[in-house]
């Protein structure tokens, strides 16, 4: 695989992971029902753990440790050999497993287009709608300053 192809596949996986990490496990599961999911096994049993979340001094400077967050992770291998990884904030190990399965499908030549169309794209549309709703609520609280000019003479 050329490095460009690899980079573009990596970008596609990462974009899918972003959508999946933001979605509820139940929604991912429901979308996956639209696909005839191929045989697969757990390469790594889903597990809970922690990551140390880092910030930057002043927002843009040297990093510092802010505090931890719970995470779940899993790895799934399709019968055809593709290995998918699932990482997500929170303690829902089942969700990490679903993400890993989707990541494996994204890498599969047979399923990549289907999982994008039937799982990732609709979940992305839901997320964008939700994000836009919140942005519109927030925008309504923006201050419109006007200056009152004192009357002349």
């Amino acid at each position, binding site marked *: 695989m050329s490095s460009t192809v690899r980079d573009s596949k990596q970008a596609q996986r990462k974009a899918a992971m972003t959508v999946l990490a933001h979605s509820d496990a139940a929604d991912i599961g429901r979308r996956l029902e639209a696909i005839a999911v191929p045989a697969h096994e757990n390469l790594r049993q889903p597990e809970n753990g922690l*990551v140390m979340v880092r910030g*930057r001094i002043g*927002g843009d400077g*040297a*990093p*510092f440790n802010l505090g931890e967050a719970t995470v779940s992770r899993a790895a799934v291998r399709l019968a055809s050999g593709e290995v998918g990884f699932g990482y997500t904030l929170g303690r829902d190990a089942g969700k990490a497993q679903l993400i890993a399965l989707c990541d494996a499908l994204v890498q599969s030549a047979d399923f990549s287009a289907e999982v994008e169309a039937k799982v990732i794209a609709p979940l992305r549309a839901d997320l964008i709608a939700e994000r836009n709703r919140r942005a519109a609520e927030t*925008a*309504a609280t923006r*201050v419109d*300053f006007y200056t009152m000019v004192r009357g002349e003479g």
Partner: protein
Amino acid sequence: MYVAVKGGERAIENAHRLLAHERRGDRDVADISLAQIAEQLSLGVDRVMTEGSLYDRELAALAIKQARGDLIEAIFLVRAFRATLPRFGATEPVNTGEMQIRRRISSTFKDIPGGQILGPTFDYTHRLLDPQLADGFVPEQPAMSEAPQAATPRVTDILGRDGLIEPSPPADSDAPVGDLTREPLSFPADRDLRLQNLARADEGFLLALGYSSQRGYGRNHPFAGEIRFGEVEVEFFAEDVGFAVPLGSIELTECQMVNQFKGSATEAPCFTRGYGLAFGQSERKTMSMALVDRTLRARELGEEVKSPAQDEEFVMSHSDNVQATGFVEHLKLPHYVDFQSELGLLRKLRQEFSDANAAPEMQEAAE
């Protein structure tokens, strides 16, 4: 010194049973759900996550329920829980400049690019108790308006373009990031460790210290350059995957204090900064943190250290409410043997005192 005292097992068991009963309260009143706590007491949840140093809304809600609303007890429970899970590593540093803004204000510039966005705030409320809330009040849906596409750069970045404010200390990829959960604290402590300590610190303690600096104990003329609250994306470089994987987003509050300037014969004067960052919507916490971050930079900025808020050993050694609670509340544990020896000593001293005072009279009587 503590000694094992046997015989309290039954009493302890029954005390915990009574605690569970009291925690439940009147059983005719509905049991409170974790979702209710997480959704409706969300700022309490944010505080427990911040000071418990663990981002997990559901766990923080459980801790608050178990602790009967005692937030310091809840923070203690969360800290104890985090010791039960393995740590996979550290995330990429979050980029607060790309936050999905929910609130963003500046008290230094009226017309900031991206605007002043009030968001959900207690500011400008009249602080009058609202009897409507007592019984099933249903609020209006929030107002909506078109969201502009313009970016909301950090105010400090705008000031920084003209060199009016000191830059943030640059990242040194070779320098390890200090972690006080792994290495014991030693002094002097670098700013990364100080910020980690302040992020976990008791809000009330930081509030009082920040306030003391405003009142003149380590004054540094602060302005709230910017406070922003919203969602940031979190990424984690996973070795097995081979790239930084997105984990989802967390809510953060960031405060940039802009403080009195420094300068020298070789450097043009510029504003200095104090920084605050916390989980959730934690505005008072991040403002206090930013004030204290700045006071603790006294040594670095060549200021005289003469107030508690400037003394890093004093601040960092007493800021953690779990440690402080442990030491204060350990006074409740049996100190019977210690106390017996004190009592013995006191009786001896009193005997000596009374012997010494009685002696002259006896001498007089003998003469």
